[in-house]
């Protein structure tokens, strides 16, 4: 059975695309056939984060308009088997995404035997974000430990549970919280919301905590999803999140301050 997952947040710049790329790559690495779709029409970036920007020929809107087939538009990843990227259009606006059009693409992917369809939502609560979440079975809500991000996540959770297709049919979208850019040092110092605080406020299950890490920027610089950087804390945290998503019981890591040596303590 295929599952549609939306990666969303409301607020921009919190790590939706980075997380979509990592999650899709992580699922595909487990041997699950995965498609990741960029819904940010006009401002596509998933192609860049996935390092396939020079291989884009056709896009999501071309497929919806019947100007290309889905097979022509999907880019097969060269690093990981079972992983396909469907880029957004750079030249159209978000009205190009119609409900029927998006549904037909998702249905074709389902019929094609995809296990997971990951929808990378644009920021905001306009058409693009709405289309990305409308067909979702599960939602991964990306949140930074910061007031505006938490508030926007709460708002998007409300929209998910009232305006998605599953909600309209009387069901509920399965929610997962993914906290990104987490800095245990700042939490300990009392100037960053803790994971416990965020979970308490949003009251949805915690999927993972991604620590603030230089490797995230390095990964996007080189167009390689950070989950492939197996030595980095962010990469490991994403891998753990994938295991949890697939039902494994994995303890959380990187949530506490690492013990520093005497000299590091003294000179920062």
């Amino acid at each position: 059975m295929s599952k549609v997952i939306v990666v969303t947040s409301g607020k921009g710049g919190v790590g939706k695309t980075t997380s979509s790329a990592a999650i899709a790559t992580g699922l595909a690495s487990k041997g699950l056939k995965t498609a990741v779709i960029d819904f940010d029409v006009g401002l596509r970036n998933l192609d860049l984060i996935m390092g396939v920007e020079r291989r884009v020929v056709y896009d999501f809107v071309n497929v919806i308009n019947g100007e290309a087939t889905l097979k022509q538009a999907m880019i097969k990843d060269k690093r990981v088997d079972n992983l396909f990227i469907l880029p957004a259009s750079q030249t159209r606006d978000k009205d190009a995404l119609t409900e029927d059009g998006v549904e037909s693409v998702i249905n074709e992917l389902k019929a094609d035997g995809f296990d997971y369809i990951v929808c990378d939502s644009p920021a905001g609560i306009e058409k693009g974000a709405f289309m990305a979440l409308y067909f979702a079975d599960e939602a991964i809500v990306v949140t930074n430990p910061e007031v505006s991000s938490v508030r926007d996540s709460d708002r998007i959770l409300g929209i998910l549970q009232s305006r998605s297709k599953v909600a309209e049919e009387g069901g509920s979208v399965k929610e997962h919280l993914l906290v990104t850019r987490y800095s245990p040092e700042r939490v300990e110092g009392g100037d960053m919301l803790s994971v416990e605080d965020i979970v308490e406020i949003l009251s949805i299950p915690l999927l993972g905590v991604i620590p603030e890490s230089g490797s995230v920027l390095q990964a996007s610089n080189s167009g390689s999803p950070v989950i492939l950087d197996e030595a980095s804390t962010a990469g490991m945290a994403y891998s753990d999140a994938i295991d949890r998503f697939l039902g494994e019981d994995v303890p959380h890591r990187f949530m506490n301050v690492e013990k520093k040596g005497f000299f590091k303590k003294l000179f920062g």
Partner: protein
Amino acid sequence: MGLFDLFRQDRKKNTAKAAKERLQILIAHEHAGGSRGNTGPDYLPKLREEIIAVIRKYVEVDDDAVNVQIEKGDDLDMLELNITLPDAAK
């Protein structure tokens, strides 16, 4: 934390606590206003505004002094009104 940070450790302590409290109040408020999906019927915000207007005929209250919520029960729904009067009005 470096050596020199020790001397700067004043004021702005535990802003995270303030963040959490502000968020909890704000989100409770927004839920009551029905912005988190189907937590209440569409008329709630308007109802709340009108109740504030009526109360203000008699007592001056803050904008956030009135909290309107719908509690869903099995047999019946309950409309819960919570009005905080200012100290002077007691």
